[in-house]
Structure formats: structure tokens, C-alpha cells
């Protein structure tokens, strides 16, 4: 009797939920975009959210490819380094103002200002010029074939609107008008904003592109607690949530009316080493040397890790082991170097013995606990596996907020890092993670352990400027071979993307974990 009653109730509820969803699409994620200003904060939640409201000169398609947006075409400049963009005509901002090259210039100046958090995107740019009302030039210090790819998140603001509202620069110590208000060209506009509580978007009727969604209103709610978020989905209060914990996939799949969207993010999770350190910082037994300078020791660490078990227990079979710093499918992926060190604890012990550490040694392992999926659990599992071959990791985990400063201060022996190639090309991790640190040229800026190889450093500029794909790939293959040989990093796996939605929702899961409302249809 009771189960029947419950079933009836449940049915009634989901019907009412269906009725509601025809007009309003509700979704949740863990963090609230902290500002509506596209240049103030360089963080994924903000950029992902604002991509629904603002647009850049170029944008990424469902498969991550670059496609025209506010620019209709672009070509390298002749006679100097840089790119010329032809702008789309007849585009208006949400307040009705026309979009012109002045807005691009203004947005460039705004985004590259000292107060902007995103100014590093424009590090290669030396000058920007307005050619005519619908043509702009970006001049770069060197040939930069990937420049258009790198500015997909560079969003254009209306100059007059921003200046009239005293928001000519991003807010720094106090809010300004752009923190809470928007005026973009994108498919949606802000209807209501209650920070940390609820943000409501409405379709932009005057959008220049054809709207493929059928949403009349979209409500975003941040839900920090993953259990609460999942409960909200399962009780029908929201239509979609991004992400859900891996271990709850089975639960969602087992229920009628819900589906799980699984994909692979482009983010590769890896361990890095303090290549440059003379001694270990966190060792209780080896205090006069840094064993990790020996590639054999680094290889031993790689052999100690049982990726299969990690996949089975921690990730429920949802990860793809990684051999290099980008997943297969990304341009520049080195087909020639697809093998990763296998799980072989005996070999690991041998290698350690060869390197002069038959009994192993202890060292410090730094990890985040709120950055990547199961990051803390991964590190604990890894530490346990390292210990099995004699590598005794002193694990220390912390929030990502404290993490980058620690890495920048070289405060580690080994560390966890996840890397997603912003340009969706292998050049990106080579530039940031493999090239020697070079502050003046902004190279190797995330190569915290300062892995350094002269040949890699030599090859990078060549890769950057090479136009011929085959020649370029062979140079990349050489770099990958070197770094694999020297075990510059231990790539572990590609992080999965797990979203969940009601069955009646169709949406696109893009590999950068950005959620685009314009591809949502509610049936």
C-alpha cells in the first residue's frame, strides 16, 4: 500500500516538474560566478557563465574548434607579426548599441589593464589598432599562429555603456557597475542577479546568430554541497547539474527520468618534481641530496603507480590513462609516444636500488583537495602505492587557494598538477610546463619544478612558428620523446567530466567543462 502511494506521489511531482521546465530551465553548479565583469576574474566558473552573455571575436564550437563569432574572418598581418580580424556587421549589444571596432579596442585596453585579471592573455600583444569601423589588427611580438585560439574567452564590452556607467576599468577594491550588470552581444542577458543565491538569464531576442535552444528563462543556483545538489536534481527541482561526484553516477542512472553525461575533459592530471632542488625539503632520511634529479628515481615513481586500481576504485572505470600532457585527439598529440610506464613495483624497486636508494627514502608530496576530481583521494592512494616500493610520501593536502603560492615558492618535493591546454594544442603545455622558466618571456611559467632541457627550449619557438603541420608534429614528437625519456612529469590520466540532467534535457558537454545554454533544448 505504502509503496504504491509513494509512486503516485512521485509521478505527480515529476509531471509538475515537467510542466515547469517547458518555460524555465534550472541548473546548478558548485560555485557562483563571483562577478559579472568578464575581465575582472580569470576563473573557469566566471568565464564559463559569462560566455552565455558576452562574446569574443572567436568562439569554440561543440567540438572545441574555433569558429567565427564577433569576427567573421581573420588572417595574419602582412609585413609584421599579428592578426587582422574582420568584424561582424549589424551586431548590437543588449542595450541596443551597435558593435564596432571601437568596442574591441576599448575591451582590449580594459582587459589588458593592470586592474584586469586576464591581462596575461595579451602578453604577446604589442599593439592593437583600429583599421576601420569593422576591422582591427592585433600586433604581436613574434609570429603567433595560435593567437586567435587564445582569445576565445576575451569578451567584448560596449564602450559607451561601460564609460557612461563608470566601469571603464574592472573593479579592484570596490564594485562597479559591471560587477552586477551586463551588456554583451551574446545569446542571453541577465534578468536578475542575487549573488550566491540565484542568477536568472533571459534569451537575447536580438542575438545575431540563430538560437538553437528553446529556453525562455534560465535560472542558475550555486549549490556547494554535492549531496544537496544531487538531491535537488533527483527531487526534480533542477534540470541539470554540473558536475556530480563519480560515485553517484550509478544512483542517477538507476533512476527513471535522469541521465548522466560522461565525457573526457582535456585536463590531464600529473605529478611534477622539484627538478632544480639540491636537497629534499620534506625528507626525514635523505637530507643531503635530491634523488628526484635522477631520472631513474622518477621512472621508479611512475612504475609504482597502479593506474588500473585507481581507475577501478577511485574513478569507477571512468578515466583514461595518459601518456603525455594532453589527451589523444588534441592537436599535436604525439601518436608516436603513446605508451606510459606500466605498473611494475619490482622494476621500481630495482630502479631505486640502481639509483642508490635500495631502501627508498621519504619526501614531501603536495596536493590540492578541492581542485580536481578526487584529488585528495588520488594522492592518498598514490602515497600508499609509493610507500609499497619504498617511496615514503609525506602527504600534505590543502585548498587550491593556498596551493599555487606554495608551488611558486618551490615549497615541494613532488606535487600534483592538472593541466588543460587553453589553446587545445600541445604547444600550450610545452610552453607552460616543459620550457625552462623564463619570466621575461613568460615561458615555463607553470613549470614549478623548473624542468629544463636545452633541446626542448630550442624546439619550442620553432614549433610556435612552424606552419607546416608535419614538420611541426615531428618537432613535437621529439619533445615528447625527450620528456618521456627523462620523466619530466608522470602523466596519470585524463580527468572525466560527469554531468547529470533530466532525461528531457538535451545539451552539449564541451570538453573544457563550459556549459553553454545556447545548446540546450528541453523537450
Amino acid at each position, binding site marked *: 500500500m505504502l509503496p504504491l502511494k509513494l509512486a503516485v506521489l512521485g509521478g505527480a511531482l515529476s509531471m509538475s516538474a515537467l510542466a515547469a521546465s517547458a518555460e524555465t530551465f534550472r541548473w546548478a553548479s558548485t560555485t557562483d560566478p563571483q562577478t559579472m565583469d568578464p575581465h575582472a576574474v580569470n576563473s573557469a566558473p566566471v568565464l564559463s557563465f559569462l560566455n552565455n552573455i558576452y562574446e569574443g571575436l572567436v568562439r569554440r564550437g561543440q567540438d572545441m574548434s574555433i569558429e567565427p563569432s564577433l569576427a567573421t574572418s581573420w588572417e595574419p598581418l602582412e609585413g609584421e607579426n599579428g592578426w587582422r580580424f574582420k568584424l561582424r556587421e549589424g551586431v548590437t549589444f543588449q542595450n541596443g548599441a551597435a558593435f564596432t571596432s571601437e568596442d574591441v579596442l576599448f575591451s582590449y585596453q580594459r582587459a589588458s589593464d593592470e586592474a584586469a585579471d586576464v591581462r596575461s592573455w595579451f602578453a604577446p600583444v604589442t599593439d592593437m589598432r583600429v583599421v576601420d569601423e569593422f576591422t582591427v589588427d592585433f600586433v604581436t611580438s613574434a609570429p603567433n599562429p595560435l593567437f586567435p585560439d587564445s582569445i576565445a574567452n576575451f569578451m567584448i564590452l560596449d564602450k559607451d555603456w561601460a564609460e557612461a556607467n563608470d566601469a571603464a576599468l574592472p573593479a579592484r577594491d570596490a564594485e562597479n557597475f559591471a560587477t552586477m550588470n551586463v551588456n554583451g552581444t551574446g545569446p542571453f542577458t541577465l534578468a536578475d542577479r542575487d549573488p550566491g543565491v540565484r542568477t536568472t538569464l533571459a534569451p537575447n531576442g536580438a542575438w545575431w546568430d540563430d538560437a538553437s535552444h528553446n529556453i525562455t528563462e534560465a535560472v542558475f543556483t550555486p549549490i556547494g554541497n554535492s549531496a544537496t545538489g544531487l538531491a535537488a536534481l533527483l527531487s526534480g527541482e533542477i534540470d541539470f547539474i554540473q558536475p556530480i561526484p563519480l560515485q553517484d553516477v550509478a544512483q542517477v542512472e538507476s533512476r527513471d527520468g535522469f541521465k548522466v553525461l560522461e565525457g573526457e575533459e582535456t585536463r590531464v592530471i600529473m605529478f611534477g618534481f622539484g627538478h632544480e632542488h639540491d636537497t629534499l625539503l620534506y625528507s626525514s632520511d635523505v637530507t643531503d641530496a635530491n634523488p628526484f634529479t635522477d631520472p631513474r628515481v622518477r621512472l621508479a615513481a611512475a612504475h609504482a603507480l597502479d593506474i588500473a586500481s585507481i581507475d577501478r576504485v577511485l574513478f569507477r572505470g571512468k578515466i583514461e590513462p595518459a601518456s603525455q600532457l594532453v589527451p589523444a585527439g588534441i592537436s599535436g598529440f604525439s601518436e608516436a609516444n603513446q605508451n606510459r610506464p606500466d605498473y611494475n613495483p619490482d622494476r621500481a624497486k630495482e630502479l631505486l636500488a640502481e639509483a642508490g636508494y635500495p631502501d627508498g627514502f621519504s619526501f614531501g608530496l603536495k596536493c590540492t583537495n578541492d581542485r580536481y576530481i578526487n584529488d585528495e583521494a588520488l594522492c592518498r592512494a598514490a602515497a600508499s602505492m609509493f610507500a609499497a616500493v619504498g617511496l615514503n610520501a609525506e*602527504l600534505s593536502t590543502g585548498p587550491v587557494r593556498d596551493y599555487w603560492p606554495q608551488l611558486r615558492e618551490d615549497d615541494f618535493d613532488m606535487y600534483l598538477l592538472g593541466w588543460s591546454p587553453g589553446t587545445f594544442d600541445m604547444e600550450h603545455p610545452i610552453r607552460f610546463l616543459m620550457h625552462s622558466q623564463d619570466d621575461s618571456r613568460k615561458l615555463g611559467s607553470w613549470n614549478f619544478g623548473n624542468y629544463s632541457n636545452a633541446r626542448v627550449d630550442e624546439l619550442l619557438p620553432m614549433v610556435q612558428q612552424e606552419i607546416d603541420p608535419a614538420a611541426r608534429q615531428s618537432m613535437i614528437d621529439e619533445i615528447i620523446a625527450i620528456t618521456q625519456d627523462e620523466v619530466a612529469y608522470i602523466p596519470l590520466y585524463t580527468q572525466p567530466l560527469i554531468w547529470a540532467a533530466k532525461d528531457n534535457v538535451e545539451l552539449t558537454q564541451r570538453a573544457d567543462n563550459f556549459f553553454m545554454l545556447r545548446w540546450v533544448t528541453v523537450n
Partner: protein
Amino acid sequence: MIALLKKYEGLWLFVHSPAAIVAAMVAVLIFLGAVFAPWVALVNPYDLSSFSLFDGLLPPAWQDGSNPKYLLGTDDQGRDMISSILYGARLSLVIGLSALTIAAILGVGLGLAAGYYGGRFDAVVMRIADVQLALPAILTALLIDGIARGILPAAIQQDLRVAVLTLAIALSLWVNFARTARASTFVQMNKEYVQAAIMMGQRPTRVMFVHILPNILGPLLVILTVDLASAILLEATLSFLGIGLPADSPSLGTLIRIGMQFLLSGEWWILWIPTLFLVALVVSINILGDFLRDIFNPRLR
């Protein structure tokens, strides 16, 4: 005869209170388990080589797919649940008891002095207590944690985690001790044995600690018990809010926080077994606290 029986009345009452006996047994069992964890537990959660991810997510012995070696199953790291719980209880009790010790020393000291000296000193102490009351336990703990994160170098934060947590809990609990000690001291100050001691010219410290303190131990003991329960819960709550202990040194609260991830995944034991354990421990301590309260408040008997 009656006098003799009266002397052991507490014991007598105890023998005739089944709830108290059960509670005491549970508490003692958990306490012993915690103390002897290194000898009793199958694996040591701190020794990463003693367990393996290979054994991860095994259910309790009575379910399919279990390994009889792990009676209550394993967590996502392959740690034996029983071992984790024993070590977790150990850490929870260490934090709880050290926090209580600090709180008791601070609170009883200030409360005694406030009650003894009265006047301005008392007023100042009570205003400080008001400020503390205005910032309730969780808030204080969150704040101290936040401050510690702001001013301590990130590298040593991990190592100081337990200390920070203990301090946070201690600071939020001292007011209870201070208020109780103060109120009881006021009562004792009017007792003639105290006046006799003051009249003799005994040092204030001697009057406070040798004469008054033994007479106000009863209510303090009750506070001690009840606050031990709060301290353990507080630690669990802070862990839930994500500012407790890291997962590699799990307290009971941390185990529950980790377990919350498995609420819906089918691995129920990872959440519910530590939760049950925590509830059993706290209920037992609370029952003992109630029992002590009854003993020390004969009017309610």
C-alpha cells in the same frame, strides 16, 4: 551504616541505572579501543604501506563481495573501517580532551578568580565571556581556523591543524567553565569555611584552589562531560564544513565527511558505520553526563 552507604551512593545509583551502565560500557570500550588502537587495529591509517587501494570499497563481512579480513568493510582507500574508526576515535578524543583541558584550565581559573575577587575584575571577565558568547562555538572555531590560515605559512598549517582545531574548540568552550565556576564560587564565597581561610590570611591562590576548587568540582565535572560530547560533535561539524582535519589523519568527523560522498553510491558503510559509532559515543557521554548531573543535584533525584 547509612553514612557508609551514602558515601557509596553514587556507585549504588550507578549499579541500579541500566542506561548508565550501558553508556559507561560503550564509552569505556570505545575509549580503550582508541587508546589501544595501534595494537588492536588491523591497519594503521597513518602508515600508507599498511593498506592498499586494491582492497578499496569492500563491503562489510555479511554482504556479497566482502573480504572476511575486513569485518566492517573498507573505504575508498582500502583502509579497514574498524581500524579507521579506532584511530579516528583516538584523534577525536585527543582533540576533545585536550581542548577540554585547555578550556577547563582557562575557564575555571578565570571563573574562580572572578568569583573570588568580584567587582571590576569580575565585570571584565564577564564582558569577555559575553564577547565570546556573542561569537558562538562554530563561529569561533571557523574564525580561528581562518585566522590561522591567514597568518600561518601554508607549509606548517598542515602540521598545526590539530593544534588549531583544538585551540578553536577550547576557546569556544571555556565560557561554560568560567560561568559555572564563577557562579559556584560565588556560592562558596559566602560559606564560612572560605571566610575562615581568608580571615587566617591565606593566600588568594590557596583559598581558590585548595579550599574552593574541591567544593565546586561536582558541577564542573558535569560540564566537563557534556562539553566532551560537544567538543566531539563540534570537531565533526567543523570537518563537515571542510575546515577540520585532512583526510589522511581522519578523526571521526573527517570519516563522516568522507563518508558523505558515498551517501548515494551504495557503499553505505563508509558513511553510516562511523556515524553510528560517533552517535553511540556521544550518546554514551551524554547519558553519563546526565547521570552525573543527577548525582550532583540531589534535589532532582
